[in-house]
């Protein structure tokens, strides 16, 4: 028995009311903590959606290890939804999950069938991921296999559609690798996964994009995503979800807070409808419930005081848009089946994710962080975009250089917080 359930509808309604929906990435191993977390998020002073983030064992399908961890009381870094029985998960959700508080399951599985079946049994219908974004960085299974598994999951979810239920799926393609991936590739993959979801029956979709290292470039990327989704996903309910920076996090409370506020302002001012937050303790450990609530409320406050997006669609004549458009055109031209097109594109190097170790990733394209925080291509391999500009320094990647690039944003925001703190 499913209750009225429309994750996308809830976000659309909040968006019409001018409210940014804020959402944590929270997940705990025990039902008691998981429920306490959801209750606290629901009652936070913000327009919130709930999250059940799953543990790493469940993500890779090792349910025996999740079982063993529950039995011995060992650490679990999320909620093992396949291992807990359905009644347990329903009890976690009872009187918490309702039309005013939709709950999304977040996982990271390249073959998520067990997970999707478990969440549906528990009365949920919103989750996220995608055949590329949950395969390449997070698994070893062949891309082709992930595409098949995700197609089956989409069709299973889509079949839930009925009075009061509109299943929802969010792409993770815009967050791939967390950091150092040029935004045009993120935008293209987010749109491709959205098209894949639609081809397999979903009618309510969100497109992710993760905050990177340059606010100006992020603005271009969100504008490009909006424009491309507008033209390619017409007739489908969709919204954009921004992720607060997913890379190495600032060590200081002040730095982490500034970063979150910048993400909230970026979301509000570009018309993103939903924001996934990060907490002040992100650099150190898995955050507590209270830290999550604090982050949600801080983000909501920052979003309310940010300038609204200007009327009309953002300009599309940016570098990010041009590259994303070129990638999409080349890939979609390969086959009318989006899944096949994507697999063929990786085989031919028309899609290629820098720093990704998966065997199905061509690994010829590389990227680097420029001095102002913009991400650039270093080598484009066979990508259908122009060769990278030869101006300026073209760095050779070293261990120190990689570390410095990975921690660039953390350093920048920690320093900004220190300076703000020392001002009279």
């Amino acid at each position, binding site marked *: 028995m499913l209750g009225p359930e429309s994750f996308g509808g809830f976000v659309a309604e909040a968006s019409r009311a001018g409210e940014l929906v804020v959402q944590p990435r929270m997940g705990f191993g025990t039902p008691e903590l998981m429920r306490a977390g959801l209750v606290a998020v629901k009652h936070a002073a913000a327009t919130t959606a709930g999250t059940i983030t799953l543990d790493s064992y469940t993500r890779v399908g090792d349910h025996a290890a999740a079982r063993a961890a529950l039995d011995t009381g060992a*650490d679990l870094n999320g909620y093992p939804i396949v291992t807990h029985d359905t009644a347990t998960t329903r009890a976690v959700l009872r009187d918490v999950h309702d039309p005013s508080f939709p709950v999304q399951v977040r996982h990271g599985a390249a073959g998520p069938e067990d997970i999707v079946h478990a969440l549906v049994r528990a009365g949920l219908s919103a989750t996220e991921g995608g055949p590329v974004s949950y395969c390449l960085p997070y698994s070893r299974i062949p891309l082709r296999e992930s595409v098949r598994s995700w197609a089956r999951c989409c069709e299973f979810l889509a079949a839930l559609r009925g009075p009061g239920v509109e299943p929802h799926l969010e792409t993770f393609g815009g967050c791939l690798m967390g950091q150092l991936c040029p935004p045009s590739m993120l935008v293209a993959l987010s749109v491709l996964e959205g098209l894949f979801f639609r081809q397999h029956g979903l009618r309510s979709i969100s497109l992710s994009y993760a905050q990177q290292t340059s606010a100006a470039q992020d603005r271009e990327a969100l504008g490009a995503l909006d424009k491309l989704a507008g033209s390619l996903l017409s007739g489908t309910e969709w919204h954009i979800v921004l992720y607060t920076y997913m890379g190495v996090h600032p060590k200081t409370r002040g730095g982490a807070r500034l970063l979150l506020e910048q993400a909230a302002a970026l979301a509000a001012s570009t018309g993103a409808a939903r924001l996934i937050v990060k907490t002040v303790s992100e650099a150190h450990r898995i955050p507590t419930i209270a830290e999550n609530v604090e982050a949600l409320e801080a983000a909501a406050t920052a979003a309310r005081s940010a300038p609204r997006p200007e009327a009309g669609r953002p300009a599309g004549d940016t570098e990010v848009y041009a590259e994303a458009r070129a990638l999409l055109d080349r890939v979609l031209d390969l086959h009318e089946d989006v899944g096949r097109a994507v697999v063929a594109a990786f085989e031919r190097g028309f899609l290629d994710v820098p720093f990704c*170790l998966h065997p199905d990733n061509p690994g010829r394209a590389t990227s680097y962080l420029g001095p102002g925080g913009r991400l650039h291509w270093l080598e484009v391999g066979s990508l259908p975009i122009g060769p990278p500009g030869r101006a300026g320094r073209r760095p050779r990647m070293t261990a120190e250089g990689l570390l410095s690039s990975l921690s660039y944003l953390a350093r920048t925001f920690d320093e900004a917080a220190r300076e703000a703190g020392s001002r009279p």
Partner: protein
Amino acid sequence: MNSYPATRANRGLDVVVSGTASDSHTWNLLYLQLFLTERGHRVVNVGACVPDRLLVAECRRHGPQLIVLSSVNGHGFTDGARVIGPLRRVPELAGTAIVIGGKLGTGDQDGERAIGELLALGFDAVFHRPDSMAPFEAFLGSLPEPVTVPC
């Protein structure tokens, strides 16, 4: 599998770098690969989410002098404790140094007892502190170089 042979050095170790079974993070693995190749070692980077059996098979195949497991998802203690037995039971790896490092638990402090446990189970060293690269480098320096270099 991303093999990443360094330019042939006359000295240096054959190293297998790998994530643990449940850990999908790869930046740590890429960093370690660069760190080791810059110091003249030859690295095979097995990648993320490596099932125990695959790790054992890869290590048997490459016969490294050093195996570096890296984990940052909070399951490192559990995953490391499980895989060290099968690795230690491989006769070909009798002389291989095996270490683990990263962010091994989910809490603020990685328990000293858990570290002792990993060492007792057969790891040669555990690098669990944020500033572990200097001790790791010192550990590298303490390992004997291979007598012959495979060509």
